[in-house]
């Protein structure tokens, strides 16, 4: 289900790294040897065979590389904003060994022909393995289902109308019923459009004071409640995209306890910022769903901690500079995130003691892999090397070095972050160093 520029694999030894793999229950200083892309030896420091590359990783953390379940590669249609090549290069720089791309492109990925062409592109260009989601409804128009069977056979990892909600409850029910024959989850953008209508900013004090049309939390949570109820009724598998409201986290927690096959994700920006950031009127803090209030941010963080939210997802949404250099209301929704996700969360959540490093590593790797049925990146003999080498002490300024992404609409431009990706191995190959 993942596609990339196959072929090259590396042989190297990473020496004296602190190896942290929460799922394998490893946290110790080890040497890790990779031969032809496969982890062949995990050991305490010993004499190394120096016939191949040796990386001295003393003081660094080696962990399973990250999996991003929510990326917009803008291809086909807006290759000026991102391509498969640039988006996967950005992913490699951010420590990701696999990413999943959303189908809201121009045209929408709603046919085997469009999906097949993307798969071919990925085989020629993708620096790290990419999976593609296909649309739930044709053209994401919300009125007829796509040919999910053929799309799954062509390689679709899951189905999503991300960017817009499936407004009709009846059609959502049919989608749940039909997706079950493909054994693929539905990834849901939960928004009740008659409640969010025209809203740019969370409905709260900031929107009221600045005069922005409000996009209330309840516009998300009623849709989350609806879709979880339908998933429970049909026994379907659903993944709730970019959770933003406390009420939505509660709904997901209750549904999971009741046995619904539901998962959820949260973005770094929703975990770090609140709608107070909108006072800057910076279009780079405009996204859908909007930044919400402090209790919502705390609820998301609690959800990530207790596992209700199994995945961190960047919702990497590149936009051309001229589209964001406009007044806030005229700007499109979305911010980039692949190259800053780990550093942002390490700086703002792990370092202040709000989230254990192990939990963050799990939610950025094993969690999303599990949800979408991908091989879990792991530090184990015999496993393909999907590894990230992290320098937790290194400080850097976002934007000082050019982005690998074709777009620079980062919510962190100019911020100092602590924690950097030093090396990424994806599918046995060193893709960033």
């Amino acid at each position, binding site marked *: 289900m993942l596609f990339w520029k196959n072929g090259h694999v590396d042989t190297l030894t990473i020496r004296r790294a602190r190896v942290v793999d929460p799922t394998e229950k490893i946290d110790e200083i080890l040497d890790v040897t990779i031969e032809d892309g496969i982890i062949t030896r995990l050991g305490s420091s010993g004499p190394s065979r120096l016939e191949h590359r040796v990386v001295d990783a003393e003081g660094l953390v080696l962990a399973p590389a990250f999996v991003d379940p929510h990326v917009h590669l803008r291809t086909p249609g807006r290759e000026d904003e991102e391509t498969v090549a640039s988006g996967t290069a950005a992913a490699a720089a951010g420590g990701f060994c696999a990413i999943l791309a959303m189908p809201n492109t121009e045209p929408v990925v709603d046919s085997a022909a469009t999906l097949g062409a993307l798969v071919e592109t990925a085989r020629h260009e993708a620096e790290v393995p990419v999976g593609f989601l296909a649309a739930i409804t044709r053209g994401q128009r919300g009125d007829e289902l796509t040919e999910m069977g053929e799309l799954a056979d062509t390689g679709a990892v899951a189905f999503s109308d991300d960017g817009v909600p499936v407004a009709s409850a009846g059609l959502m029910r049919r989608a749940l019923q039909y997706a079950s024959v493909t054994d693929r989850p539905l990834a849901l953008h939960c928004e009740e459009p008659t409640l969010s209508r025209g809203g740019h900013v969370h409905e709260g004090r900031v929107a*009221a004071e600045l005069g922005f049309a409000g996009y209330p939390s309840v516009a998300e949570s009623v849709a989350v409640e609806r879709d979880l109820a339908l998933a429970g009724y049909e026994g379907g598998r659903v993944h709730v995209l970019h959770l933003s409201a406390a009420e939505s986290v509660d709904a997901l927690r209750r549904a999971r306890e009741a046995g619904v096959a539901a998962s959820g994700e949260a973005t770094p920006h929703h975990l770090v910022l609140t709608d107070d950031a909108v006072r800057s009127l*910076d279009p780079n803090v405009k996204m859908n769903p909007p930044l919400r209030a402090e209790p919502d941010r705390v609820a998301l963080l609690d959800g990530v901690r207790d596992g209700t939210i199994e995945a961190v997802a960047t919702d990497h949404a590149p936009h051309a500079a001229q589209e964001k250099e406009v007044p*806030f209301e005229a700007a499109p929704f979305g911010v980039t995130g692949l190259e800053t996700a780990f550093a942002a969360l390490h700086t703002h959540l792990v370092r202040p003691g709000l989230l254990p490093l192990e939990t963050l590593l799990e939610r950025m790797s094993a969690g999303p892999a599990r949800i979408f049925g991908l091989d879990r990146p792991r530090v184990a003999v015999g496993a393909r090397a999907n590894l990230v080498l992290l320098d937790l002490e290194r400080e850097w300024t976002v934007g000082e070095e050019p982005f690998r992404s074709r777009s620079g609409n980062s919510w962190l431009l100019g911020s100092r972050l602590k924690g950097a990706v030093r090396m990424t191995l994806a599918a046995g190959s060193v893709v960033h160093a």
Partner: protein
Amino acid sequence: MIRLVKDDLRPPDWAGSLGGDATDARPGRPRAAEPPGRPPKRHFLSVGDLTQADVERLLDTAHTFEASLERHVKKLPTLKGHLVVNLFYESSTRTSSSFELAAKRLSADTLTVKSAGSSVDKGESLKDTALTLGAYDPDVIVIRHPQIGAPQLVARVTEAHVVNAGDGKHQHPTQALLDLYTLREELGRLGGLHVAIVGDVLHSRVARSLLQAFALVGIRATLVGPPALLPRELPAEASTDIEAIRDADVVYVLRMQNERMEPGASFVPSLREYTARWGITPERLRPGQRVMHPGPMNRGVEIDPRAADSPESLITRQVRSGLVVRMAVLYDVLTGGPVGVQALTAVEVA
């Protein structure tokens, strides 16, 4: 202080924003390109940027200018040689005409650009229009725009002093200032007054600016209107009952816009229903209660013509205040101080 906003659309620094103070999101870093020793550029973008001292100084300056307008020769040489560009992306009678006249009364050159008939019609972005006009080195750009934050964008990309003449539903700071001026001139004081703001608060930039201005000078505000048009989170008393205007010294009536009744919006069921419940009629006013309206009025909708034209109405007084307050604002952003004696010498007309 009038806030330095050059950096406003630049990347915020959230280093301390976790659970922190909202103001952390506002970067205070000086722009690298700013030559050392140059004072920050003064803009007039939001009432929220003003201090009480700023307001008092501006109202005093306006008062001085008003006295000068009673002379036979009304033109002052104060801003001679300065260029004031009026950039209007929304239709406006009062605001655009009073800014133009204010600049002319101060002897500035003026250039008025309206979106209709300009390159904006051809799809030119606000940034490019601002850069184009900025190439003429204007001293002041006065901008009205339907989108929140447009003046901040212009302030970032040009070297001009920027004056906000209304941005979307966000701010209309010169309107708030002229309303304070009107209240001070006509009621003799500001502190301790009670003003009821009636109508569509949700979509009103005037109401947002007024609430901040009232807080600065100690005026008590009560918001009155239909539930869907009263944002819950604004820092003011609010009531859906028109009886709540009873105790106010002044009833400030907001414009009720037809587009709020579009299908699917349903902020109120109909204008007829609105007028019946919240329309300001002489019967609803106490004797001596003053009435204000920022214009343009929908007579017979939010305000009964008898109330608008009564001796208690301050509506035309507001328009007159607009001219001198805008003179004061132009003067203030360019000079940053109280009006000097020299400024008040009338132009010798040859």
